[in-house]
């Protein structure tokens, strides 16, 4: 990690997941062109591949699997969505599996296999009540769009599941490292604790917590209390500059104390997880030089 400067030959590429394009690519790769056209034209596919949330997790798994299979990169860094949805992709293989093994899928496939006759003509008696309910709730037209969509994708679902499970296993392998980033604030650390617990349950290798924007005091000799008391006196005497500087200092002292307590609480609850601090910068970072400064500090 010392070679993160531009001068010694390393390079960094970036990409953003295009959910629709990834989905289209998967369809093209795993079906013949005529089938693919049919799928692309299905209104349900169009909505699902571009607008609905949830599809993203599957496509993220697909893309990650592809990137790793190409064996082109020394290191792949994935920036996940924030908050709880960050770990939704971990559920993707299991959800897909439950769906594929469930009766719902067979229900949707029934009309297509029966040669496209009336939607539920071929389903068994046990589906009777359920299918009536379904037709009533979602309506005939949407149901046949859905049915067409599921039937067209039928040959691909198995592959989806297989690849999602494969990627899931890679995420558990020692070549993977999860890093959780949080600012030292109670809410953020609570979320980080949730991540740590969840990753442990999934047996995913959590390598550490990156404590972002940790503040530091430059004048540790002055306590918050004496600073505030002195600020009052100075402000009354007309020295607003020093009074304000002391107030800034007092606020910083308290913030540092709070951050220290919050970080200690995390370590108490997750004793095995290493913590790496990143110092707070006065201004926001939005260029490579700023990133290098943080990266060098982190990797040292």
């Amino acid at each position, binding site marked *: 990690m010392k070679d993160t400067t531009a001068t010694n030959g390393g390079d960094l590429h970036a990409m953003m997941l295009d959910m629709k394009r990834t989905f289209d690519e998967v369809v093209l790769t795993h079906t013949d062109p005529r089938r693919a056209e049919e799928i692309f034209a299905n209104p349900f596919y169009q*909505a*699902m591949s571009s*607008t*609905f*949330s*949830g599809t993203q997790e599957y496509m993220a798994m697909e893309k990650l699997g592809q990137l790793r299979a190409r064996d082109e990169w020394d290191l792949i860094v994935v920036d996940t*969505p*924030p*908050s*709880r*949805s960050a770990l939704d992709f971990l559920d993707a293989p299991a959800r*897909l599996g*439950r*769906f594929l093994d*469930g*009766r*719902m899928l067979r229900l949707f496939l029934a009309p297509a296999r029966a040669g496209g006759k009336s939607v539920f003509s071929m389903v068994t008696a046990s589906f009777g009540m*359920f299918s009536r*309910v*379904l037709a*009533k*709730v*979602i*309506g*005939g*037209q*949407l149901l046949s*769009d*859905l049915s067409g969509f599921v039937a067209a994708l039928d040959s691909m679902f198995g592959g989806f599941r297989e690849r999602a499970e494969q990627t899931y296993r890679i995420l558990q392998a020692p070549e993977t490292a999860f890093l959780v980033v949080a*600012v030292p604030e*109670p*809410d*953020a650390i*609570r979320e980080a604790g949730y991540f740590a617990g969840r990753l442990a349950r999934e047996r995913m290798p959590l390598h550490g917590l990156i404590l972002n924007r940790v503040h530091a*005091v*430059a*004048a540790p*000799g*002055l306590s918050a209390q*004496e600073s505030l008391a*002195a600020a009052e006196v*100075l402000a009354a*005497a007309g*020295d*607003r*500059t*020093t*009074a*304000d*500087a*002391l*107030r*800034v*200092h007092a*606020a910083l002292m308290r913030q540092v104390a709070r951050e220290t307590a*919050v970080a200690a*609480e995390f370590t108490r609850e997750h004793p095995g997880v290493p913590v790496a601090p990143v110092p707070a910068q*006065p*201004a*926001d970072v939005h260029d490579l030089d700023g990133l290098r400064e943080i990266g060098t500090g982190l990797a040292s």
Partner: protein
Amino acid sequence: MSRPGEGWPARLHVVTGKGGTGKTTVAAALALGLAAGGRRTLVVEVEGRQGLAPLFGVGPLPYEERRVAAVPGGGEVRALAVDPEEALLEYLDLFYKLGMAGRALRKFGAIDFATTIAPGLRDVLLTGKVKESTTRTEAGRRVYDAVVLDAPPTGRIGRFLNVTAETARLARLGPIKTQSEGVAAFLRSPMTAVHVVTLLEEMPVQETADAFAELTALGITTGKLIVNAVQPPLLTSGRLTQAELRRGLAAAGLATDRETVAGLHTEARAYLTRRAVEDGLRADLLALDRPLVELPYLPGGVTLGWCRPTRPPRWTSTRSWPTPAYASWCAAAPAAWARRPPRPRSGSGRPRSTAGVPSS
């Protein structure tokens, strides 16, 4: 606030913001503020995060509207954590009188279907439930004076709120179309307002601008821009030099060694740099031309989330509420809610360079 809820005409307040900006806390505080004067409000969460429960000092919220706070003057706040699976069953029961047949859906894997092949359905159900709570009446009177939704973050809010319009387009006929159209129209009516919470930091401000643009394009009514954790302005005048600070420290009878003086000077300069960035970001926010509400930074932090209930939750009574730290913030909030936004200054662009620290 001369009258409870004045300036907040909507009945459904959707609170979004980038993760970490305090949108859950703001949603909870807004529900408390709007419950003043004997009103009843509901605060709803939809992401399964159980972020509201610790704020109100209660155990995990069930899929049920529970009273979580009493407000002086006879008002009360109820809270609800919407679970998509339960919402689906309830929805089917409500509109189709399914009874046990609804339960059979689970057996058939319909729930997995909803989250696997039709993931958007989840958001349809969640927004549908929110509409139902907002418009529900009992004996000809609305059950809630206002509903506050702790919504998904800015990155997902457009998709979340537009899902019903999308579904209505997809289902050309049938009950799903009718339902979805109803919810889509409700979210676009004056009854709904989407408020965006931000901090004076670059990424949240950028996402705020993006969210307003996206929501406006979708025809969804945007409400207020809520700037959270605003620091008091210090060091607004005077010359900040080490010599000046040394004189001041000496006058106050404090240590004047080099480390202390230089340290204090460094801290003060970092503060000014930060504030210059914040002023630029505030100008960007004002340029969005939305009613702006500033909430003060809480020196102690909103630490309620950190406190665990010291005894098991008892739903029959409300625990002592609010706790002092939260009370001080909530006391500040209504005043800030009512404050008028400053007029946008012209020609105040964001300073790109961070090297220039104002020294005068």
